[in-house]
């Protein structure tokens, strides 16, 4: 059993609990134990990157100090935003040692200095590079045959290009994961289009428009559900469909899922850990066909 540090981030403990539970279970099946950091704080999300204020980098960097304190030198995170924030803060201090020095001074109450040597993984990256999609395919007990799923990357998983996780214009790692699950990844034009992010608070109508465009694009390509790894994208794509339907009568309900939820089902795990009760639009019906002849999940 390989052990790796796991940074949940705020939403994973609440709104996106299903994401966390399915990931932990799925990774266990793949022989990886996600060891939640004994102490962690909010990464600050992209707020820490929104201005040139070095102070704001202390939030993400403290989490990396925690990784070292727990004895690890790599950490995996599930939320696209946390990934983006942690990785970019890490890359910043790696490229500019004078900034690292300053930040260590800001954090001088920590027991150790941060030495910018932690590797920050996104779950998909870890699955692709350290486990391999072939191994994942082998662990699938219930291939999601015939299921058409749309991989939604959104903004923060692949941009800016310096993140270097996947191709910026045409990322494919989530599509490959979908194939490994036995499902068919759908080709559609809006996979990297922004969901509207925080505008959901100040301009929900604008976000509803984005939701409509993205869902429609996936639907016209035949998708039955959209997968995402960002809780904010999840919220926008899931909850704003109701508002979008008000201006767009032709919008058909599209279930949204976290990337490990269908994977958990494909691994034959109990659907309960998916916590589909938190979804506005329920994806349960998608999996009914996969049930064993006795009508119960395997």
């Amino acid at each position, binding site marked *: 059993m390989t052990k790796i540090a796991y940074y949940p981030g705020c939403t994973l403990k609440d709104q996106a609990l299903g994401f966390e539970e399915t990931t932990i279970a799925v990774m266990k099946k793949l022989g990886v134990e996600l060891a939640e950091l004994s102490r962690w704080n909010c990464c600050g999300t992209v707020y820490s990157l929104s201005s040139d204020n070095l102070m704001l980098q202390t939030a993400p960097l403290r989490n990396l100090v925690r990784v070292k304190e727990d004895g690890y030198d790599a950490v995996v995170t599930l939320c696209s935003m946390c990934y983006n924030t942690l990785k970019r803060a890490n890359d910043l201090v790696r490229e500019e040692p004078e900034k690292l020095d300053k930040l260590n001074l800001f954090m001088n109450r920590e027991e150790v200095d941060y030495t910018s040597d932690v590797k920050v993984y996104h779950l998909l990256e870890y699955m692709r590079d350290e486990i391999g999609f072939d191994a994942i395919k082998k662990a699938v007990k219930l291939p999601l045959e015939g299921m058409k799923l749309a991989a939604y990357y959104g903004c923060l998983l692949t941009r800016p290009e310096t993140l270097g996780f996947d*191709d*910026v*214009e*045409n990322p494919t790692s989530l599509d490959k994961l979908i194939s490994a699950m036995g499902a068919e990844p759908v080709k559609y*034009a809006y996979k990297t289009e922004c969901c509207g992010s925080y505008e959901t608070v100040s301009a929900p109508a604008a976000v509803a428009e984005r939701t409509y465009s993205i869902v429609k694009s996936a639907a016209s390509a035949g998708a039955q559900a959209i997968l995402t790894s960002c809780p904010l994208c999840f919220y926008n794509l899931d909850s704003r469909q109701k508002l979008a339907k008000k201006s767009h009568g032709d919008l058909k309900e599209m279930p949204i899922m976290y990337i490990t939820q269908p994977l958990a089902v494909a691994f034959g795990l109990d659907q309960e850990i998916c916590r589909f009760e938190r979804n506005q639009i329920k994806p349960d019906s998608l999996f009914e066909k996969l049930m064993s002849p006795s009508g119960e999940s395997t």
Partner: protein
Amino acid sequence: MKRIGVFVCHCGINVASTVDPEKVVEEVSKHPNVAFATNYVYMCSDPGQETIRKAIEEHKLDGVVVAACSPTLHQNTFRKLITRSGLNYYQHETANIREWCSWVHKDKEEATRKAVKIVLTAVEKVLKDENLEAISVPVTKKALVIGGGIAGIQTALDIANAGHQVLLVEKKPSIGGHMAQLSETFPTLDCSQCIMTPRMVEVAQHPNITLMTNSEVLEVGGYVGNFEVKIKKNPTYVDWSKCTGCGICTKECRLEGKIPDDFNQGLTKRGAAYIMFPQAVPLKATIDPNNCLMVTRGKCGKEPKCVAACTAEAINFDMKEEIVEEKVGAIVTATGYELYSKKNLGEYGAGDIPDVVDGLTFERILSASGPTNGEVRRPSDGQVPKEVVFVQCAGSRDKEFHRPYCSKICCMYTAKHAMLYKHNVHDGQAYVFYIDVRTGGKGYEEFYDRTTEEERVVYLRGKVSRIFQDGDKVMVWGIDTLTGKKVEIAADMVVLATAMVPQEDIKELSSKLKIQIDENDWLSEAHPKLRPVETLTSGIFLAGAAQGPKDIPETVSQASGAASKVLALFSKDTFERDPLIADVDEDLCVGCGVCVEICPYGARELDKARGIVTVNPVLCEGCGACAAGCPSGAITHANFSAKQILNMVTPYLDK
């Protein structure tokens, strides 16, 4: 005792406002070898030069120092002058008291003191300068032109028409380059092939031009006036002395219709036996060695169909590559350009959307002799597109990801494309997304005006952010910055004005020729303003787009320019080389060979039999690297000896 004359120039106020010329004269006159010193307002002028000439005569001077501007400006002026008074060309030195002194300092006293030191340094050098004679090299009056596009063709014709032999080497089976692919050229809308093919035929028929197509330059050795080149003639598997160009083999070929045709930018497919295009020169069939079944597998059915069909019995699968060795006096590199691949433009579909094409592809669609017979039809379904979007700067002017430079021709050819599209599809709508519209040539602005005013093409100032397939339309997302509004166009077809880039193998070629390429891989000219057709390697010249993006008029001008440089070289039977080169003291040389490795020009050779190194005086460019590296002190650099340099340093160390 050598008698030196020092002439201090005011250069108007350039020098005199900061350096006191009279004080300099006063100080340097104290030097025992300075027999005469004076100052004048403009030394390079006729009266200034006359001052020097008179002084040489009256004061019996053996050497001259002119304290003035940088030697790059007037060193040769003064050196020529002193030869007219009977002195050796190399008995003059420039003391740069302008760029090195008056132009970079403010304090008059300090600057004057520094100027004195600079002049004394030059005096010390001249004291030990030896009389040198230029090195004479014979010139082979035959030119090699690499590349058979419009640049190579023009250069070859100019040199041949002046009575000299030319070897024109072209990689493809036919000459013509990209200009042969164009439909019409701006701003005249001349049919491209109509204006080009007469020249192509002239090249083929010219008694002074030897045309070698399907050939590549393998190796270049030697030096200016005496290059030794090896050319590889790739086998065509067709005996061109027998082939009549009838084209039957191209139709009979088993692979007919299977191989994407490069000339038509992949819009059509050809067989392995093919003729590049109907106006090809030479009009002969070639067999593609990468696809032909006989060549790759040794077997083509029972019998190759081309062999059966050829009434001239010209097919010969036993043909081998041939290496030809030639001696030439000058080389002109005219290898042209390619277009930046659409695969690099992920935001524009990465080349996967069939109806998103590049400029050359659109030219083939427009061309009357092209795959659609001159009707504008889109590649996916052959429909006539009613809404066409043209995207300028696709890969150019992009410091972040693609090419940082402007490709120069795209604004003009996009206007041309939009105009020709409208001539073809009267009820069509054309949109052009641009950042600027650059129309710097003669008649270019007026041409662009026609596009907007007469053809009613919609010009939108803004970049296109994304292009993707949506059903049978191509969605183009852009912005119109002049109104600040986002623009979404459901187009039938998109034409990308992709960046011009150098040939793929330019690095290889440049190292074979020992010429430089710049940071964008374009061939480097000797000076961007004043020496655009020469390289820093003597005897090798540049013509056309290989040196940088340019249009046809500029290419033709440059080609003639390069030809004129070659003709200047060929106008004499011998060529004079600078004698300021390095030498070997045979007594001190231990034959360690360190200098051979150091020399960037390959001018030194270890003579194993004699145990010493020899220098080729014509290849040596006098850089001095060998002299610095020699552990035995066996290398002397003409007029830059160690003793000279030590003497030159002394005035600087004095108070």
